[in-house]
């Protein structure tokens, strides 16, 4: 797509907003919905992957060290991962907190 969605004018839209490009919803940054974000204490993580199974957004993947971590472009901050993480690796904090 030549223009990003936020640059598109009404003339750029396909008839009836028909989408011809597969997977175009990936562009949509649902991370802006977030009011809380997950923080991680990875030394407690047993890499069970339970958080990634429960994540309704499907945005949790293993990072380079093999720990499970949310992609913040998509993470809506729902906190389900923190709730399900039984070794208590994940803690939700308010977005404005450092």
């Amino acid at each position, binding site marked *: 797509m030549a223009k990003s969605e936020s640059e598109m004018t009404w003339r750029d*839209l396909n008839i009836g907003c028909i989408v011809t490009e597969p997977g175009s919803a990936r562009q949509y940054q649902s991370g802006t919905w977030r009011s809380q974000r997950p923080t991680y204490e990875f030394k407690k993580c047993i890499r069970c992957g339970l958080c990634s199974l429960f994540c309704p957004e499907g945005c949790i993947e293993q990072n380079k060290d093999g720990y499970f971590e949310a992609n913040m472009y998509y993470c809506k901050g729902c906190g389900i991962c923190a709730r399900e993480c039984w070794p208590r690796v994940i803690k939700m904090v308010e977005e404005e907190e450092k």
Partner: protein
Amino acid sequence: MTQRVGVEVSIAVADAVRMANPDVVAAYPITPQTHIVEHLAELVANGEMDAEYIPVESEHSAMSACLGAAAAGARTFTATASQGLALMNEVLYVASGMRLPIVMVVANRALSAPLSIWCDHSDLMSVRDTGWVQIIVENGQQAVDNTLCAFRIAEDRRVLLPVIVHLDGFNLTHVIEPIVFPEQADIDKFLPVSSYPLPLNPDKPVAMGSFAPPFIFTEAKWAQEVALKNSKGVVLECWSDFSKISGRGYSPVEKYKSDGAKVLLTTMGSIGETASVAIDRMRAAGKDVGLLKLRLWRPFPFDELRVAVKDADVLIVLDRDLSFGGPGGVLASEVKAALYSLERKPKVVGFVGGLGGRDITMDGFEDIVNKGMEIARKGSQHEYEIYGVRE
């Protein structure tokens, strides 16, 4: 030479649909539209029409099935009335937003309660803002002609919007009128095979009706508004081309002895015929009156209306609908809005009458014109007048 044949208007409309050669008809019967879809079902069952007829369980499903069929590129037709139109309301907005060229005939009928199967325009007004092109006809011939035109307008690449042809329930649907059908060969040329630009196709997949976040929704709605406004040019072109094969022309605001008249009456639908005869009688008696009949309801013909009323001092608007607790009739309200910005404009007097199938006779129209002229002279404390209610 084409012949005039005596035929019930519903049957004639169904025959016009057959001539348009649709691929899919999905419909649910409801009075007073039933004869239209019954006859279509019969034509398909008898092999006289090569279409899929989908008998659905509700009008909501009828419109949903039309949506799917049109999305696959099929030429698609349905018909309904009143409560059925109300039930499919949700899907009407989807059809226009998705820019699917569905054609629907609505046999105008009052909305319940109390239950009424008779004609008024409360159903018509309930779909005013659905984004469909809307034509309203006055007699059976106009219903046939405009049903054929509706397919051409809807499928035009510059439009790609669904189209409603409104015709009054019973007053038109159930009467036998002399109808001239165009030649099939002419219609085949007039309505080439439909080709939707981006249909559902497994070899070239598309996603339709997808989600639009706030940053693109306004653009999507503006694109739809521009398409509906611009459709007027295509409607005019279509009517002009149709007149070449039929000899019958249409215009968004049809004028009847209105040029130069100081008092004008405005109507929609079949009562325009009675009103025409009433105008003849009033003119014969020396009254300076004329008649305007709205043929194109959406897109609203602002320019044509403004030109048509330019010499008038009084404009009496008769609505067969009522916006409860509001300004009265919807047509009168829109006419007032259309004229508001003009320096010189007629006084607009709104009447609501003919609700739930009550007839307005020639004497009735004379009465309305006389009362309207009196109100224009003396003023009134009411937003509108209700005609014929017993005190």
